């Protein structure tokens, strides 16, 4: 076997109250794609941050090409040939796309940088303007820009922490093509993903962590889905497969919870119609930038609509602000947890209570919060289970669960979930899907947005298909397949309801 380009030996790292890593060893060979797997909070991101010097390990050594190194920080890691995309995109939203790609990389000739950025972006088929501020684009695009930046730094080791969490198939395929090419050039790639298919698709070897400890290192070819899940969770997971299909309880078709007629916003989404009944799960399917999030934001008053009429429970309403929507029983869990969701300074408990408290106003402090919070922490298996833990210190997947709890606690009539399973491990993902189905069974209406079509199909009663910021079809989920949805998006298939994007 070729000697490893990177080796980590006996790494331990503790945070107050948590042993995030306990004697973990890890080897990365040149020219391989190595998947780092584990449940939420297993220590994957921490291991990566130790590698790149964001955290200093309490014990253990890092060897680069056989030589012990001490990496003092991200910049040094980059100079040592380790290029990293962290889990939470940490670029500068107010700088331009081009600036984000090239900043911090020594002398840059900014005139040429723009042209070079454009060239790189086309390699990913990314049709965006490198001169615009990065913040103007969705989290998925930002993630791609971060990847473009990392890939362009010709590194010996490329580290990607959940790079695909908000991408859809095409982007993933493009990213994988680039990764394969880099692999052929001898670059060693460390890759984290909760999508098992992707891991089996691209990785050569797998290292599994559980609760901060090393479970083992495996050849991907020698693993099955079930054994991998077994290694990750330490239990046999049959629960995943038994997820019941939607539509067991037919939605209550009498009075729609929400009806949108010709709601739209210039530059956001073309006017669309939509009805959601109580007990119904409606899925939004579409590619990146198709307008899924934009549509959802109008229904929540996060953005103002400039046409159309919204009614809730049959009564016309205007949602001037999220606060107004919440009063009408609408909840919205946004896709970008770092900038739009979590208040990182506050504790887990405070974050969970926030929406409920905001609805009650500042005078009446929610007093029974402890019980409620603990119940949801247990129900969603948030770790650490301490309500007083600082939310920003939680692992990505656990932060996502905190946001879900925040909205579930408000008992909304309509729950809008934008990429709720982003960064969530297989087991918890199944639990969240189950939760959505049971909420619908209880009579709640759910609007479910996900880049993962299988997931949308598994739980939705009907699927709205979006393309180019228009809602182009509504498909009843009877024998619906991802292929059919993709065909609809491509313009080939027809929905049960005719395209209604004619509004433009």
């Amino acid at each position, binding site marked *: 076997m070729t000697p490893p380009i990177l080796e980590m030996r006996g790494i331990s790292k503790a945070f*107050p109250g948590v042993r995030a890593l306990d004697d973990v060893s890890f080897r990365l060979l040149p020219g391989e794609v190595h998947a780092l797997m584990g449940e939420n909070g297993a220590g994957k991101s921490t291991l990566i*941050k130790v590698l790149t*010097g*964001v*955290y*200093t390990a309490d014990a253990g050594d890092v060897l680069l090409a056989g030589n*012990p190194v*001490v990496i*003092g*920080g*991200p*910049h*040094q890691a980059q100079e040592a040939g380790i290029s990293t995309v962290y889990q939470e995109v*940490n670029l500068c939203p107010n700088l331009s796309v081009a600036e984000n790609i090239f900043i911090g990389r020594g002398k840059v000739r900014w005139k040429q940088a723009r042209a070079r950025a454009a060239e790189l972006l086309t390699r990913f088929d990314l049709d965006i303007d490198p001169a615009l501020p990065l913040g103007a684009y969705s989290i998925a695009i930002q993630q791609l820009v971060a990847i473009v930046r990392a890939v362009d730094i010709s590194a010996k080791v490329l580290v990607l922490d959940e790079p695909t969490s908000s991408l859809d198939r095409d982007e993933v395929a493009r990213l994988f093509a680039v990764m394969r090419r880099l692999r052929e050039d001898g670059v060693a790639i460390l890759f984290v993903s909760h999508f098992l298919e992707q891991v089996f698709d691209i990785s050569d070897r797998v290292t599994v962590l559980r609760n901060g400890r090393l479970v083992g290192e495996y050849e991907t070819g020698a693993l099955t889905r079930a054994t991998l899940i077994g290694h990750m969770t330490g239990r046999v997971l049959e629960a995943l497969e038994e997820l019941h299909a939607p539509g067991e309880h037919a939605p209550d078709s009498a009075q729609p919870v929400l009806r949108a007629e010709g709601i739209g916003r210039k530059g956001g989404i073309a006017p669309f119609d939509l009805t959601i009944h109580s007990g119904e799960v409606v899925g939004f399917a579409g590619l990146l930038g198709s307008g899924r999030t934009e549509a959802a934001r109008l229904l*929540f008053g*996060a953005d103002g609509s400039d046409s159309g009429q919204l009614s809730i429970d049959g009564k016309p309403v205007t949602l001037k*602000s*999220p*606060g107004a*929507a*919440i*009063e009408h029983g609408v909840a*919205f869990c*946004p896709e970008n947890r770092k*900038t*739009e*969701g*979590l*208040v*990182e*300074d*506050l504790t887990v408990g*405070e974050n969970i*209570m*926030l*929406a409920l*408290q*905001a*609805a*009650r*106003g*500042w*005078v*009446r*402090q*929610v007093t029974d919060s402890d019980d409620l919070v603990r119940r949801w922490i247990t129900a969603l298996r948030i770790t650490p289970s301490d309500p007083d833990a*600082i939310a*920003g210190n939680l692992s990505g997947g656990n932060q996502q669960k905190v946001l879900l709890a*925040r909205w579930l606690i408000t008992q909304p009539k309509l729950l809008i979930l934008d990429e709720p399973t982003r960064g969530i491990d297989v087991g918890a993902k199944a639990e969240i899907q189950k939760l959505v189905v049971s909420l619908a069974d209880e009579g709640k209406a759910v609007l479910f947005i996900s880049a993962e079509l299988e997931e949308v199909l598994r739980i939705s009663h009907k699927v709205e298909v979006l393309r180019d910021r228009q809602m182009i079809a509504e498909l009843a989920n009877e024998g619906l397949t991802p292929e059919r949805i993709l065909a609809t998006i491509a313009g080939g298939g027809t929905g049960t309801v005719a395209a209604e994007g004619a509004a433009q």
Partner: protein
Amino acid sequence: MIKHRLFWPVVALVALLLGNRIVTPGFFSVEVKSGHLYGSLIDILLFGAPLILIALGMVTVIATGGIDLSVGATVAISGALACYIISDQANQGSVGGVLFAVALALVLSLALGLWNGMLVAWLGIQPIIATLILMVAGRGVAQLITSGKIITVNSPPYKLIGGGYWLGLPFAIIVVVVVAAITAVLVRRTALGLLIEAVGGNAEASRLVGIRSRSLIIMAYMFCALCSGIAGLMISSNIAAADGNNAGLWMELDAILAVVIGGTSLIGGRFSLAGTIIGALIIQTISTTIYTAGVPSYRVLVFKAVVVALVCLIQSPAFRAKVFRRRHKRPPPQPKAEVPASDSGDLEVSA
């Protein structure tokens, strides 16, 4: 206990007090003279009262992610208006007249806070710029009220506020205790504190959970102005005069410093009332030290700067880590440590 976020501010305060005790043997003694409490410690509380009040206001504004540079100007305006009204009265000693003057001064202060809050919350002007307007214009307003002169008053009821005694204690200290207690109850016994911290911690997320951040922000600026207004009354009452030019001069800087020393980050979000009070006491102790130790006036600024720098260093986790690490065996060549992104607030006290 070291993990407690008030630990290092308290250590700094105690160290300063002990230092004073060594230089001035009678520093800790408190005596009763003709029914009133006297002593250096009482003096620190008494002369620190205005700063504590302003710092309490400042910390709520900073928690929302803002800053208020106009507190010094508000001090001047409030004192000027009260003294102007009293000096205009036939009987300066009338309690009713003084109450009227005080009420008007405080109402004006609230209006100034409302102005700041509107600029920030409704017009979206950067807090530093928005409050800079009043910081500069406010002194002009104060001088307009006093017609550019120093107005002196001779009013026993007014004198009580900043220079009088009640139940053996300086009245100003009682006012501070009451204001601090009301603030603590308002902030921590209701959800006000949490909502303010959410707005300061992540404004967009707060909007999306339905927090009405505009009214919260305006309330914070109004509260800060009210505190400054009360402080202005104390200061002018203590010297029985209103000096539009010098009253409250540079107090915004002391107040901001008190907030930061007390462990609240200037970025906003999490804030500590107790820490802020301790921070204000630290600054006042430094000032008192300067006078009791007889530091020559031309050295005062340098002395103060050095002490403040030391206090900040003690509190910096990064600094402590470095000093601490040096005394232990270190791993092989350690290149210069890069500060991790999550740890960038130098003065943040590890929670």
